[in-house]
């Protein structure tokens, strides 16, 4: 189970990174969502091995680690909030630059850098 879970974690992470390394803002945002998902999966993967029961069980039975669950919940919520912020940022950035492509951002940045270089002595 360890192997399978960590394989899936790695796969999700790899796909997420591949998306973040895409040349386009929306896909970058999607990639971060996948990456967050992979880390949440890792959190709960710690409890796969125990094969616990849900809450409300009589004492003595194995229980899925509640601390892990609450860590996962917190991570999900934080990920959600940050992604919502990222989405609005994607919107504003593409509107300000008139493009969804990250290379346009780089071009705009480089233009500024070179303008400063030129005006200097």
């Amino acid at each position: 189970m360890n192997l399978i879970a960590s394989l899936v974690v790695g796969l999700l992470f790899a796909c997420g990174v591949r998306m973040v390394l895409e040349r386009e803002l929306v896909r970058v945002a999607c990639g971060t969502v996948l990456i967050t998902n992979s880390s949440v999966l890792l959190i709960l993967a710690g409890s796969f091995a125990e094969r616990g029961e849900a809450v409300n069980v009589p004492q003595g039975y194995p229980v899925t680690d509640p601390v892990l669950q609450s860590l996962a919940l917190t991570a999900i919520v934080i990920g959600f909030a940050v992604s919502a912020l990222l989405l609005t940022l994607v919107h504003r950035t593409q509107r300000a630059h008139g493009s969804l492509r990250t290379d346009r951002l780089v071009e705009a940045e480089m233009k500024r850098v070179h303008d400063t270089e030129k005006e200097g002595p």
Partner: protein
Amino acid sequence: MPLWGPLLLPWVMACVLAFMDGRRAWVAWLGIASLAASLVCTALLLPQAWSGHPPEFVTGDWPVGVGIRLRADPLSIVYTLVSTAVLLGTLVYEHVAGGITSRSFPSLVVFLGAGLTGVFFTSDAFNFYVFFELAMTAAFALASYGEKARNLRAAFTFVVVNLMGSTLFLTAVVMLYLTTGTLDMQSIVAWGQAGAPYALDVPGTLLLCAFGVKLGFFPFHFWAPAVYRDAGPTVAALLAGALANIGSYGLLRFGADVMPQVLERARPLLEILGASSILYGSVLALSRRDTREVLAYASITQAGLIIAALGLGGREGLAAAVALALAGSVDKTALFLAQDRGGERARRAYSVAAFSTAGVPPTAGFWSKAWLLRAALERGHTWLAGLVVLASILSLLALFRAYQREQWLREGAALHRGTGAVVFALSLALVATGLWPEPLLRAGRDAIAGLGVLP
């Protein structure tokens, strides 16, 4: 002063400020007042923190580990003091410089303050992550302040790259829990002394990289020049002056306090990383025309110095890292704020902060670099001492080239009385510490002595 005071105050005030329109003057002053009050509250904790039994509590009075332990040892207190002071200065600056243009700016700055205070006070790995995210999210929201195309671009880069850092950190914390079965730092320390010797190396590596992104040292720094250049000057001051402290604090806390054995093994690596950051930052700063870019590379050099100090290890090396981080935080803030304007006041503040960054006395930066030099020579790492000297010379050259280009040529748009007062206060603090270094030296020494598990 109870321990929760400095944490609760900015937190509640941030919530209250969130309702208000930050563009109004009185709201901004309210934000300033709450940061000032939390600064005072933190200062009131000083005697307790230095008493040998730092104040601490566990939430809800649950057993340690189940509840979250908060603890304020000298390291936490000095970091909180400096970071809050920097935030306070920046907020005052932004307000008096011409008014805040965004509704949520004061609230977010105070949230950032609450997040940083929480990060510095907590003694629980996951709680650290939560406060860390609070500070980061507030910084994400602040990064686009100004909302010009370049600001948004900077914010986007900042958010995406730092999200990776946050993910790494979360993963590291979870791995710590999975491996040790606890989140409380002191319990992890105990586990580390008793448990399997290498098991903490994996989370340790991830933590190093995560904090590397925050602190911005080679090769994790590539976001920094773009963000510091394109974000507004105030925001750049906030990010470089206050937020980057998380990186150095985290490395000190997790490295020196929680996992000293991992730090011990990582020392050669840290020295290599530190040396390459120092060289990289110093060399790249030389040819830059944009002052903010020069400052960005100078802060990479600074990060490299901190890492190198950590890599030296021992009490002296770690104390030097603390001193470097604290002095660097004030330096960077003063530089970023002063470079935005012309006129005599800005010129003076810039030159003081630049001398401090280059390690020229009588400034705080001198003592921190002197400490590093001392630690390096004590350990017999002459090459590192040489590197420190070289970095000093190169940053002197780079910073004053920028100074002459910007400050002496530009007329008009001078700092007025209010903004001048902020940068003046910052540079005064640098010079005063330079003339009477005892507070800085004691802060560094006792902060490390408070960690207690070192040889």
